[in-house]
C-alpha cells in the first residue's frame, strides 16, 4: 500500500474513529460557543500524495483561513482547522458582535477572534483524542494565517516528507450550522508524524503488523 504505512483496515478504522471523536467534540464546543446546532461529516481517512491532499480542499492556490497547532507529548503531529475566509467572517462576527470586522480583510479583532475559535476547536479535538487513547497530548500556541492552501498545509507535512511521499489525511468537515442559509465548510486535518502511529495503536492495544 505504501512505503511505511503498512496498515490494515482495522488501523484505518481506528484513525477514522479518532477523527470522529475529535471532530465530534469540536462540534460540541462550537455549538456551545455560538449557541447553534452544528453537524459534521463522517471522517475520511485516506492515504494520499501531497498534491492530492491539497486538491481535497480546492487546490494549492485556493485561499483559506487556517489555524495551525502542533501536538506534542506522547506523540507529535500537526493539526489544521481551515475554512474559507468569508465563512471565518461569519464566525468572528458572531463572537465579536461587530459586522464591520472581517477576517478576510485581515482586521485585527476579527482575526484574533478566529484564532481563538480555532484554538478552542483544535483543543477540543485533541482533548478527545487524548481521552480516547489515554495518551498525553499537549497543544502548542495556535497560529493563524489566511493564505494559499498549499503554502499552509506544507508546514504540516515536513516531518512526514522525510519518511514518505504520501500522508495519512484524517479529515472531518463541520457543516450545516443552524440558522445559516450558506453552506459552511470547516475542515479539520490531523497529520500525526510517522513515529506517532505505533504509539497510538499500542495505546489502544492494537499491534502494527
Amino acid at each position, binding site marked *: 500500500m505504501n512505503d511505511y504505512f503498512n496498515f490494515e483496515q482495522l488501523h484505518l478504522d481506528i484513525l477514522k474513529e479518532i477523527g470522529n471523536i475529535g471532530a465530534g467534540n469540536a462540534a460540541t464546543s462550537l455549538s456551545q460557543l455560538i449557541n447553534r446546532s452544528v453537524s459534521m461529516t463522517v471522517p475520511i481517512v485516506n492515504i494520499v500524495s*501531497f498534491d492530492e491532499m491539497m486538491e481535497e480542499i480546492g487546490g494549492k492556490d485556493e485561499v483559506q483561513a487556517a489555524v495551525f497547532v502542533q501536538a506534542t507529548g506522547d506523540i507529535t503531529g500537526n493539526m489544521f482547522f481551515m475554512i474559507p475566509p468569508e465563512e471565518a467572517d461569519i464566525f468572528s462576527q458572531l463572537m465579536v458582535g461587530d459586522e464591520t470586522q472581517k477576517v478576510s480583510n485581515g482586521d485585527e479583532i476579527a482575526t484574533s477572534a478566529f484564532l481563538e475559535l480555532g484554538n478552542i476547536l483544535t483543543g477540543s479535538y485533541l482533548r478527545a483524542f487524548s481521552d480516547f487513547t489515554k495518551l498525553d497530548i499537549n497543544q502548542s500556541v495556535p497560529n493563524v494565517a489566511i493564505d494559499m492552501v498549499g503554502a499552509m498545509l506544507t508546514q504540516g507535512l515536513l516531518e512526514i516528507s522525510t519518511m514518505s511521499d504520501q500522508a495519512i489525511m484524517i479529515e472531518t468537515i463541520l457543516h450545516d450550522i443552524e440558522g445559516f442559509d450558506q453552506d459552511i465548510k470547516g475542515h479539520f486535518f490531523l497529520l500525526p508524524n510517522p513515529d506517532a502511529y505505533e504509539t497510538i495503536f499500542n495505546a489502544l492495544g492494537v499491534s502494527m503488523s
Partner: protein
Amino acid sequence: MTQVTEVVKVGIADLNIAKHPQTIMTAGLGSCIGLILYDETSKIAGLVHVMLPDSSMARNKSFKEAKFADTGIEALLSLLEKEGVRKSRLKAKMAGGAQMFNTANSSEMMRIGYRNAEAVRAILKEHKIPLIAEDCGGNKGRTVEFLLDQSLLKIRTIQEGVTYI
C-alpha cells in the same frame, strides 16, 4: 491565428521542463522553493519544487529526488542536459522559502523555508549558475509561473497580487 499557450504544471516535490511557447508553473509555495533554471538562447526552462534542503534528511531509501534541494537540482540539471542544454548557459531565478506560521517552537523544521533558500543558493554557487533574481522569505504563499519568452518569473501572492522578477 490564436495561439494557445500550454502551461506545464509542476507538483510538490516534483520537477519538469518546458519549451517556448509553453510556460511552466507551480502553485502554493510556502516554505518550499520554486527554482527555475533557464537557457535564454534555446528558450528551455526547468522548474523544481523543493520541499527540504538536503537529502540526508530522508529516513526512507527511495524518495522523489525533487523533494530535496541537492538531489532535485541534480535531477533537473541532468534532465536539461538530456535536452541538449549546456550547464554553462543556465541562469536561475527562485521564489518561496517563506515561514507561514510563527511558532514559539524553535525546532529546525520551523525555519525550513530559510534553510531551503540557503541550500539552493549554495548549490547554484557550486555549479556556477548565476542567480539572476529571487523573491524569498516573508510569511506569504506564492504561485509562480516562468514566462520563457521574456525570461520573467511571474509571482502571485494574496496580499500583493502579481509581481515580476
